[in-house]
């Protein structure tokens, strides 16, 4: 369970987030959508403990957020892969940092690479991978630490249409197979509707509306009219002026 209470984040003189109140149930997904510069990425950074709020609180599973949590996985927009490490080393990084022994790391990394069907890429460097493959590696890296909370910033924004849907399907599959809370930030309405059990619509520095998505979890959702209906609903909320 994530509880955000009166959160305020400032960048120097500028207020990036103001009076944010939000609750996200444990083992559910939440998509945060809004125009560029509305503060959605800042909210994600705050949830990750990467930036400290000016005021307000974030509680994760009842504990107040004071910094980076060991079991929060974060995937940022550019995937954050280290160019000088092979796929295998990138994926193993989280476990290495947690001082796990090689004997513990090897089976976990190999299993996850296999699960995400990227085991044949393990000796490659990020520069040799396509966007979709890079995103899979970034997902694999966070999965090794068995996160109970996974935060993603624009998980498919840099990908082509087909790869975009593949990655979204993969995220849904991961969510169904592993109990965890997923919070993702996106500017893509279809992505928010496909991956968000709860859809948070933001406007400049604040939350405009929160929608529950009853159709979440259906892998065939994109082929149904309900999907487009809820997409339209999100769009209307985004286009609506003022809070």
């Amino acid at each position: 369970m994530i509880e955000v209470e009166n959160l305020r984040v400032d960048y120097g003189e500028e207020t990036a987030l103001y009076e944010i109140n939000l609750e996200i149930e444990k083992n559910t997904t939440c998509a945060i959508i809004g125009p560029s510069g509305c503060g959605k990425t800042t909210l994600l950074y705050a949830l990750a403990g990467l930036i400290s709020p000016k005021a307000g609180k974030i509680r994760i599973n009842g504990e107040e957020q004071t910094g980076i949590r060991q079991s929060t996985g974060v995937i940022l927009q550019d995937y954050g892969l280290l160019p000088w490490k092979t796929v295998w080393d990138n994926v193993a990084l989280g476990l290495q940092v947690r001082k796990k022994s090689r004997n513990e790391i090897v089976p976990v990394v190999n299993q996850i690479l296999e699960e995400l069907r990227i085991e044949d890429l393990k000796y490659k460097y990020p520069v040799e991978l396509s966007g979709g493959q890079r995103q899979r590696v970034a997902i694999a890296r966070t999965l090794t630490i068995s996160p109970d909370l996974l935060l993603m910033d624009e998980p498919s924004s840099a990908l082509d249409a087909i790869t975009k849907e593949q990655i979204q399907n993969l995220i849904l599959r991961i969510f169904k197979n592993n109990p965890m809370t997923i919070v993702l930030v996106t500017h893509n309405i279809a992505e928010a509707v496909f991956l968000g059990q709860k859809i948070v619509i933001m406007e400049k520095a604040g939350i405009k509306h929160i929608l529950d998505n009853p159709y979440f979890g259906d892998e065939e959702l994109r082929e149904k009219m309900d999907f487009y209906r809820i997409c339209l609903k999100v769009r209307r909320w985004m286009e609506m002026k003022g809070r």
Partner: protein
Amino acid sequence: MKGSKNRALYGTFMIFMFWYALHFSVHSSVIPSPHETVITFIRIFPDLLLSHLLRSLGRITMAVTVSLIIGVSLGLWIGMNPKIDEIINPIIYILYPVPKIAFLPVLMILFGLGNLSKIVLITIIIIFQIIVTTRDGVKALTKELFYSVRSLGMNQIKIYRHLVIPAVLPKIITALRISVGTSIAVLFFAENFATQYGIGYFIMNSWITVNYTKMFSGILALSIMGLLIFKMIDYVESRLCVWIRVGKMNTDKN
């Protein structure tokens, strides 16, 4: 690999051709023929050239090592701390273009006529390149990359180990390549004063004694030394920065 060998052979061949052309057109003993030079080089290398060369190599190695240790540490520190950068940047900006080579007399008074003053001179000339390159390398790292590794739970030491140092390594190696070229030139100058050892001294001494073949053997030795250092840097780069080579191959492929 085969391609690079062929290129090296081609390069050497062309230089020798140019050298022959110059030798025959100038008609002066100032430019001895390549084969004469090579024969003299081989004859005097074991007993004479080698010891001069080793002295020079020692001075360069020492200066480059000191510059790397101090320069990289300072560069990382400045790059990681914007406030320190604000304080130090104006000083570097003014000192960088100052022709420090003119300080050799001062250095000889302060550090003596021996090796130390020469090493200090090379160091103060090449260290700026290394500081600036390292600092700029760190500053070029995106905030997102720092966020990403911090979110993995890395502490400051691990951030240096896994992110900052590997990121600046290729840039440091490039700076090193430029610095070595500069340091050989500076060394040549510095070895003209108050020493009887070193390849710079050997070349100028052969010139004074009007032994141009010997002088050219010295130039050849200095060139080979430079080339070997460059090759060594290439080797170190290929071992430490595999991803750069892979990236280049990948770009060529696409």
